[in-house]
């Protein structure tokens, strides 16, 4: 089973971690901050990939849990404690709780209905952020969030970077282990052929729900990292644009691989935050072009791995009778 490609993958992963850990030593502070944003967005994209690529649930509302985590962490840091990693744990719990509350309904639907329902959930949460001024600060957002402190020292640019990197690696590791576990195999089974999984005795809705809650919790953690890095959270951070960009990162990177969407996220942030400003606000246009190119040239995304494979429906729906009258 263990072949050289697996070893190559392991070496690449170790090399990537080493390079990432050393990055602040040879990058300018501005570049370090951009890299921090990439890590935050990469964790969001990877958590979305657990739904989209692994379980086959394309969600348009995943930014909601990211936003809930971001607001929870920002509020906690402002009003309770700025000591890391407490705000992150709060963000993780808040994202998970929000996903647990809304996912109960969402996993009862499939296909377009799931897309629409998650879109609605995302919009409701974004509206709540706009209007619940006493907690969220309304359209101004929560600003003046104090710097996260570790051992009573506020974190600087490099400190924030390492803090975010550590949380990213932990979150990614959890997603990776789950996706590789027998539980992850069951999620892939649901993606490939849910009716067959039920025929094998799997209560598939429960499995989808657990995946949804876990993805929401990790998205919440990513939101907590956003609050740590930006020290400002606004309704724009959890709107449809963020959800769509995360989905874009997953598709560009290659759904189902978890690491591919991280690369996709890096590309999305590069185009939006690095190249975009030089184009006088035409960043989204460039992203659109990149998306079209990727879909045409690399239908399996940058990771080269398969998109969720949907075999033709093999079991007719309830209403369809057998053919009649053919002797």
């Amino acid at each position, binding site marked *: 089973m263990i072949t050289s490609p697996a070893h190559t993958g392991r070496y690449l992963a170790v090399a990537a971690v080493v390079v990432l850990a050393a990055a602040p030593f040879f990058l300018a502070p501005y570049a370090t901050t951009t890299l921090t944003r990439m890590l935050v967005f990469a964790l969001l994209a990877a958590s979305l990939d657990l739904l989209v690529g692994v379980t086959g649930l394309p969600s348009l509302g995943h930014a909601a849990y990211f936003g809930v985590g971001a607001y929870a962490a920002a509020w906690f840091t402002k009003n309770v404690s700025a000591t890391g990693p407490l705000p992150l744990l709060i963000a993780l719990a808040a994202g998970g709780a929000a996903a647990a509350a809304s996912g109960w309904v969402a996993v009862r639907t499939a296909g377009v209905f799931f897309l629409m329902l998650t879109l609605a959930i995302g919009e409701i949460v974004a509206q709540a952020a706009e209007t619940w001024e006493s907690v969220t600060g309304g359209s101004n957002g929560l600003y003046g969030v104090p710097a996260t402190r570790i051992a009573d020292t506020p974190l600087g640019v490099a400190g924030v970077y390492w803090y975010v990197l550590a949380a990213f690696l932990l979150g990614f590791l959890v997603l990776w282990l*789950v996706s590789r576990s027998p*539980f992850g195999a069951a999620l*892939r089974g649901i993606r*490939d052929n849910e009716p067959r999984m039920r025929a094998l005795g799997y209560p598939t809705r429960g499995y989808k729900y657990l995946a949804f809650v876990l993805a929401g919790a990790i998205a919440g953690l990513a939101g907590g990292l956003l609050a740590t890095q930006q020290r400002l959270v606004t309704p724009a951070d959890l709107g449809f644009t963020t959800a769509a960009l995360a989905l874009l990162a997953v598709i560009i990177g290659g759904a189902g691989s978890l690491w591919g969407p991280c690369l996709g996220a890096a590309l999305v942030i590069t185009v939006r935050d690095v190249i975009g400003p030089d184009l006088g606000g035409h960043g989204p246009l460039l992203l659109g072009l990149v998306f079209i190119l990727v879909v045409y040239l690399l239908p399996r995304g940058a990771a080269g791995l398969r998109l969720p494979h949907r075999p033709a429906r*093999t079991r007719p729906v309830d209403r369809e009778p*057998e*053919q009649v009258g053919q*002797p």
Partner: protein
Amino acid sequence: MTAALSCRAVSRNFGALRAVDHVDLAVRPGARHALIGPNGAGKTTLFRLITGLLRVTDGQIELDGRDITRLSEVRRARLGIGQTLQHASLFASMTAAQNVALAVRRHERGVIPVVPVAERAVWTRVEALLAEVGLAGRGAVTAAALSHGERKQLEIALALACRPRLLLMDEPAAGMSTAERVALATLVRSLPESMTVLFVEHDLDLVFDLASDVTVLSLGRVLLSGTPEEVRSSPEVRQAYLGSTRDEPLFLPRAPGDADVSAG
């Protein structure tokens, strides 16, 4: 003796169409019970009523004397109803071994762990099941890349992984080559006595070769239930199949590899 499976006055309507009409069916424990009938007779619908994919409009279904009429498909699977589908329905992106592993884990473990424990036992059983259905050495091939016959074999491995008390096979030989049909017959014969098998099949040579009991459905009703000999010599069955009572051989030998693709 309690029947392994009994259907009592089971009916199912699709709008105005009554696809299954007051069907009574008793399957003896350990039987190799064949369900035959022309297309549109309601065989597949009856199967789906038994597995729980469809709900009955009327009637009662019992598994080993236990009423399962209102149970979900998942619960019925956990109670020991295994199935292979007419059109192989697999996990296309996974290898043959991974397909079987999904079934093995659910049956042997119940709750699927996030931490991989005792995976070795799972894969040992997977290898044994693949060998049992004639797919030894094909475990690493993606399900989508298997031949049609191999997919049908893999279907059977998935069903057997759940150690079913009652195995439902919907046209297991459809689209199989002659050699594959022979292997299938050998496999079905080698299944443990304790396993009851109910199967739909259009290849009547195979039916009369394997079956201990035969039930003939026509237009949603039971036409006749009996031993293969009784069914073979029944004029009613002849009428239903051929629309004639002329004295001619009812079940002609089929040409090798004559796949049945007409079934709905």
